[in-house]
């Protein structure tokens, strides 16, 4: 399941398919982000980490998502100056860790089920 997932909306011939596709990825995105935040990351490094694994995410989608997850109480953050530049670093907090484990387990079950369903 390691293929490129471009999040830039494509105004293709079938707009409906694009919409549904977007819906499909929206759920995956949160889990992907949580998985990388067991270690401390800031916006750009997170984007690179996901990109290295083959998951391309729109920056305009990713950065607001980080904020929202923090507001929802899954992440903790702080400002630090690295390389002469102020950066906001995010990491999973206790709630976030717990939520991540649950979601990751559910994901595996989901993938197995979908493999059978799509056969």
């Amino acid at each position, binding site marked *: 399941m390691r293929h490129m997932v471009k999040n830039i909306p494509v105004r293709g011939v079938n707009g409906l398919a694009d919409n549904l596709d977007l819906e499909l990825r929206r759920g995956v995105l949160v889990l992907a982000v949580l998985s990388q935040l067991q270690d401390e990351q800031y916006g*750009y490094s997170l984007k690179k980490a996901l990109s290295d694994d083959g998951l391309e995410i729109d920056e*305009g*989608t990713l*950065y*607001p*998502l980080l904020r*929202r997850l923090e507001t929802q109480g899954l992440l903790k953050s702080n400002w630090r100056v690295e390389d002469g530049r102020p950066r*906001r670093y995010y990491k999973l907090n206790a709630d976030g860790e717990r939520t991540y484990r649950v979601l990751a387990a559910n994901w595996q079950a989901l993938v197995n089920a979908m493999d059978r369903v799509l056969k």
Partner: protein
Amino acid sequence: MNAQELLDRYIHEVGRKLPRKLREDVKAELRSLLEETLNERAAQAGRAVDADLAVDVLREFGEPDTVALRYQPAQYLIGPAYFPAFLTILRIVFSVLGALFLAATIYSLIQNANSLNAALSVWVESMMNLVGLALANFGLLVVIFFIIERVDSRQKTESKWNPRDLPAVEDHDKINRAEMVGGLVFLIVLLAAFNFFPNLLSFFFITDGVWGRWPALTETFRQNFVPWLSLLWLAEIALRAIVLARGRWRVPTRLAELGINVLGLAFLYQVIRAANIFTPSFFDSLIKIGLVVVLIIGVIECCVQVYRLITRLISPAALSFHPQKR
């Protein structure tokens, strides 16, 4: 314009649409991230940071409005939890307004039946008032629900509902035997009273220890209208007898019912406009007002009947197809 200025403009624009709490912090974070992206992109492309590169990066990032929206949870005027209730109440309010519209129309017709011009101007004026009323009510409803949603933090919990508690499906065509028979008897009594025992319909009083009576109905009414009224009642009696025998309403009997109702309403209209029904005039005016209300309700009921008939006739069951022949 150089890259820095483009960035500044973009960040400012996004900031405008952000809630105040987040604004400065998000703007700072965006600046840091966008600059880093820009520098990396420039390094990769092997050129200096310039305006064109900045345009590309910003384009990829997204429109300021869209991006700003993503920083906030979904915003509703009236959210999904309360919208159905809102719609239901809106429907109720607007049906009442619709009834008022009908009443106003009928009133202006009755009051100014002589001159179409006068009727029209009265109608237009009441319509304008009604439109204002409708808009005001709509706005009020929106405001009320806006407040309710934000004040009521209690989430709608899925309580254990009982399928047995669901109301029975209405079968409009089933008849209530007792009710039908009662109505039939009442009509026969009315018919007999008005035609054969008009003397009974009077006001009885005592003066000087002697019973006197004062006939209730005027002579004109009795001569001109009672025959027609009797005819209507006769038709209704016949219809009810048929339906009683059959056991339920069907389309032909429903149509007959509609016909009698329409005729009845026309008759009522004539009565209101023309004659004095009762001998005491103050009583008469009082009754007339009551009759106007009855007329309005009657028209509304007729419309409902017509609507029901039409939906019945064009329903998939009515347009039945024949099963495949083997």
